[in-house]
């Protein structure tokens, strides 16, 4: 989908000033009378240090501006479209993991400053690129056909030395390693799935109010247990916590 297409559907034509610079998404939008900040990555970005810092810088700018003006912290809509982290020796040398940690900390700072945080996954959300910011939001929404994964099944078959056909068969029965937004929904990491025919502006309005009232606690393991996709995470954590 073109950038204008997505943002028009989310916020309404003319009701946003969201720009895509290369693979960096940033800008403002208005929805149901509220001002929103929109920040993220685009076109299956392989996120490198520069892009991670651009996203982090935009988050800090929103936090700083609202703190300085004393206005209510604006909701931040993260647009996550990433094929993962940039694979390069240069990025590793300079500590891309540390830059991602910095980005994660900026997202957390925004939460602590009271900015409701929402992520929309519309293309793909893969591995380290998803960990750095998208997965940390208070509410994660995904288009039903979005690709959410750590690795595709063929690559996984190579690494784990398990037959591709066998993985495919197991993937049909278990959400634990098969790619797909629906599996992440069942496991509690995606809160809601939006269908192509849905009114996305309506969905977003509702999701933002859910993000604004989200608990400060991480409820994903409990959600995954309720939805039947991740039955051990919550009880095992509770065993350690309550022992």
């Amino acid at each position, binding site marked *: 989908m073109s950038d204008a297409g997505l943002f028009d559907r989310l916020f309404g034509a003319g009701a946003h000033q969201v720009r895509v610079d290369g693979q960096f998404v940033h800008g403002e939008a208005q929805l149901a009378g509220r001002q929103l900040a929109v920040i993220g990555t685009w076109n299956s970005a392989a996120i490198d240090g520069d892009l991670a810092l651009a996203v982090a810088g935009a988050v800090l700018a929103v936090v700083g501006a609202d703190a300085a003006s004393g206005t209510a912290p604006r909701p931040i809509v993260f647009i996550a479209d990433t094929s993962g982290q940039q694979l390069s020796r240069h990025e590793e040398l300079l500590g891309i*993991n540390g830059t991602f940690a910095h980005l994660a900390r900026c997202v957390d700072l925004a939460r602590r400053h009271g900015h409701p945080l929402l992520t929309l996954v519309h293309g793909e959300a893969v591995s380290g690129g998803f960990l750095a910011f998208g997965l940390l939001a208070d509410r994660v929404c995904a288009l039903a056909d979005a690709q959410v994964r750590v690795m595709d099944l063929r690559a996984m078959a190579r690494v784990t030395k398990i037959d591709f056909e066998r993985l495919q068969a197991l993937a049909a029965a278990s959400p634990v390693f098969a790619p797909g937004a629906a599996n992440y929904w069942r496991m509690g990491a995606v809160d809601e799935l939006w269908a192509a025919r849905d009114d996305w502006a309506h969905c977003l309005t509702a999701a933002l109010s859910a993000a604004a009232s989200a608990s400060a606690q991480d409820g994903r393991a409990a959600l995954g247990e309720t939805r039947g996709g991740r039955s051990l995470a919550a009880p095992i954590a509770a065993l350690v916590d309550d022992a």
Partner: protein
Amino acid sequence: MTLRRVSYFEASARARVAGLMDPGSVLEWCPPQQRHSSPHLALLDAPVAFDDGVMVGSARLDGMPLLFAAQEGRFNGGAVGEVHGAKICGLLRRALRERPRAVLLLVDSGGVRLHEANAGLIAISEIMRGVLAAQAAGIPVIALIGGSCGAFGGMGIVSRLCDALIMSEEGRLGLSGPEVIETVQGVEEFDSRDRALVWRVTGGKLRRALGEASDLVGDDVGAFRAATLAALARPSEVRDLERLLANQQALETRRQHFAEARDGLEIWRACGFAEPEAVPMLAVDDFNRQLAAGQAGGSI
């Protein structure tokens, strides 16, 4: 206290815990006797471990109460699956209630366990939030890295969220492992069999020079213990907007400064080491001394 040097690299996770903590103080939760193994590995007909590759519990360090998690790098590369991750998440949640002096993460992990990839990825995100929550509650989290798997993938991100990051030269820290980069981008990009290069790009001396590791120690459990005590004596960092803006600036400056760098030699030269090629051979104490002297004129 024995003076015998015990290799942190060679030791198992359990041996590291035994060597680090005060004798007799270790208490474990979800111990192997309870057999919380991974059902997902079993379903794929892969070997399981009774502790799913991580030991979590409480202990004392010089009398101070701590919580700890120790990953076993030799079991599935210390990779994080559903049970493994949940044990660490439960520990971090417990920290909020129990308020120990600190949480120690003995990281030895390649990241997400592919056999249960989605569960592993989500668990790492939960660990990240758990670390951030503990820190926000004033409980420092300290990462120790010196095992055969280092800290990669999501655990490389988790490690860099920590208040202190103690590494040995043998320890490695990054996001994508050299093998992954070589497989995808080719051997010209990163030759994963060139051990010296791998250590110059991901190893403890490089990470310490960049300031990503707070401490560089020898490959000795006792040295890790001493560095942990020293880290606990330092005041913990305030992470407000002002501080994160400063971090942002520092990271941007680093990228400008090393826009083309692909080898740790360039970093060491910039840190004031007169002979960067000799850095891998330097004893830890000499390295730390020369780094301090080089940075007296301004850090990178």
